Structure formats: structure tokens, C-alpha cells
């Protein structure tokens, strides 16, 4: 009976240690494991210009402008604390729109603007039928 209790304690301790290790790895890797830089990250300790990185955030309202050549798009990415202006030439994803999430792959320029070579739309966790969308999407809450 005693050996059994000893094994139980050991096994539970091992499980707790393993889960704690996972959580520690999560918090320790916070910066390295990030999929993208946010504009405020980039302002604080941004990557050097020219390095291939990703920039993610929300497309700022009324910031999307198409250049005269028809393929180049300028827009501003914001995370509420900082903004970065982005230039991209190519086909934007269907879900790319203002006040929606975006992840741009590319590099920073010397003036801290960003040149993207590829755009990914970042979907948020809200799902709703078309008739519920609209005004509710802008308040970013689903009141029920």
C-alpha cells in the first residue's frame, strides 16, 4: 500500500512538473515564438531594416489607398499603441479589409515603414451570420 501511494505521489508530481514546464516554455518563448511583430513591438525594438519578418495588426480605418498602377496598395497597420505604414504590390486576400486583422510578410525600411511581399488575412474569433454583422462588428462585442 505504501509503495502504491509513493508511486501515485511521484506520478502526480511528474505530471505537474511536465505541465509547469510547458507553461514556462510558453512564457519564456513569448518573443521568439511570436508569429509576427506588432507595430508597437517594431517601434520599441524592431528588427533591422531589410530583415525578412512579419508585421501583424489591424488595418486602420480609412487607410487603404490604391496607387495609380492598380496593383500597389498602401495601408496603415495599427495595434492601438503604434502604427506602421505598409506598401504591398500584388493580389490582396479576399478577407483583407479595413478594421480587420492582417499579417504582412516582408521587411522594414530605414524610415520604419514596411514593404510587404505577401499578405495574409488574420481572422478573429468572432463568427456571425451576415444579418448580425455590420454595426455589431464595429463595436467588437457580441452582446447577448
Amino acid at each position, binding site marked *: 500500500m505504501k509503495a502504491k501511494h509513493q508511486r501515485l505521489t511521484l*506520478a502526480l508530481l511528474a505530471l505537474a512538473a511536465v505541465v509547469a514546464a510547458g507553461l514556462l516554455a*510558453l512564457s519564456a518563448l513569448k518573443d521568439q515564438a*511570436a508569429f509576427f511583430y506588432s507595430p508597437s513591438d517594431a517601434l520599441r525594438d524592431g528588427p533591422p531594416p531589410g530583415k525578412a519578418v512579419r508585421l*501583424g495588426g489591424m488595418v486602420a480605418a480609412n487607410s487603404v489607398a490604391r496607387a495609380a498602377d492598380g496593383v500597389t496598395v498602401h495601408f496603415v497597420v495599427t495595434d492601438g499603441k503604434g502604427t506602421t505604414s505598409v506598401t504591398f504590390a500584388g493580389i490582396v486576400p479576399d478577407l483583407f479589409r479595413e478594421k480587420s486583422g492582417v499579417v504582412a510578410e516582408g521587411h522594414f525600411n530605414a524610415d520604419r515603414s514596411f514593404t510587404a511581399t505577401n499578405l495574409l488575412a488574420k481572422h478573429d474569433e468572432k*463568427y456571425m451570420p451576415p*444579418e448580425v*454583422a455590420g454595426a455589431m*462588428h464595429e463595436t467588437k462585442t457580441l452582446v447577448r
Partner: protein
Amino acid sequence: MPALHALANPTRFLKIARPLTGALTWVGIALIALGCWAGLTQTPPDYLQGDSVRILYVHVPAAWLGMGGWSGIAIASIAFLVWRHPLAEVAARAIALPGALFAAICLVSGSIWGRPTWGTWWQWDGRLTSMLLLFFVYCGYIALARADADRGGDGRIPAIFGIAGSVLLPIIRYSVVWWNTLHQGPSIGLTSSTIDRAILWPLPIMLAGFTLFFIGVVLMRMRAMLATAKAEARMARMARS
């Protein structure tokens, strides 16, 4: 615990598992069929994703079972190490294959959803990568458990692997909360959801259906493993006499 100890007796376990296997499997399949019908015909499309939102009715239950399956392996492994019940080892090994399958379904369905939504089949973000790792860990467990059994091991090494693999579960769960990821944050909490009710309601049906089907398959595999062990023991006895 007395209930667990009673179940540890293979004869008693088989007596309960035999009728339960068919019942759980068929109720699970019926619920999945109902959920598919509801999810494909009765719910509105999403305002942004359109009809591809319906993938969530498969993706979310598959992810839940991929992670839930490993939780089951970890619990069975602890029970095996502590109480040395052979049935716990059988349970862990029976869970591994369907668990790996559902993790794969989660990855594939997510990829199919990601192409139209994000504009990419695959990205090495925290959630996607940690889920892929879980799939590989399942494959490693299956190979390790088989090798251990082939070499006449006592099952302790796969059990330790089963506990160690749990390291991925909190990483998968919190990757989207604590890291920047392409994958969105959790939509469904314990009490609330950011998925509108009109879209959400078939999901619990699918979750229940997938879970019952999963348990049915696990029971089926456990019974097959016990039967194989019994047949092998009988052949060994016959060979000796």
C-alpha cells in the same frame, strides 16, 4: 476509486464494454449525421468567411478529441504506473491511434479552412506548429508502445512517454492567448462564446457525436486487444502442453 478498481478486472470490464461499444458508436454516428445535416443546411454562412465557416463543425471536435485523447493517454499512463493495472495500459494504447487520426483531421481541416480565410495552406505559427507536434508525438507513442510490446517490455516506458507528452497540452491551449499567432484566439469559453448562436448550435451536437464515437472506437480496440492477448496466451499454453 472502488469503481475504477472494479473495472480493472478484465472480465467485468468486458461485461460492461460489450453492450456499450455498439450503443456509443451508433448514437455517436447518429449525432454526427444530425450535426452534419444541421451544419450544412440549417445554419447561415458567416459574414466574412461565407460557407467555409462550416468547417468548424468538424475542425473543433477533431481538435478537442486530438487533445482529449492525449489527456486520456496521460491519465491511463498514471493509473498504469501507480496501480499497475494492465487494463490501463490497454486503454492508453487503444486511444493512441484514434487520437492521432483526429489530430490529423484537425490539421487537414484547418489547412483547408486556412487557404480561403488566411490565404495560405500552412504557416509555422504557434498553434499550428504545436498541434503538428502533438500529431508526431502520437506517432512516436504508437511506435514506442509497439516496440515495447514486441520486446516483452513491461509497458513502463510508453507510460512515462504518455505523461511527458502532456507538456504539449497547455502549450496548444494557451499558444493563441500568450503568443501572437495567425490562428485566432479561443472562440468558446466555459460560459460564453464569440460565435453567434445561429452558427454555434450544431457544434455541441457534433462534439457529443464525435466524443461518443471516439469512446466507442476505443472500447472496440480495447476488446480486440484483450481478445488477442487471450488468444496468444491460449496458443502459448497449447504449445507447451
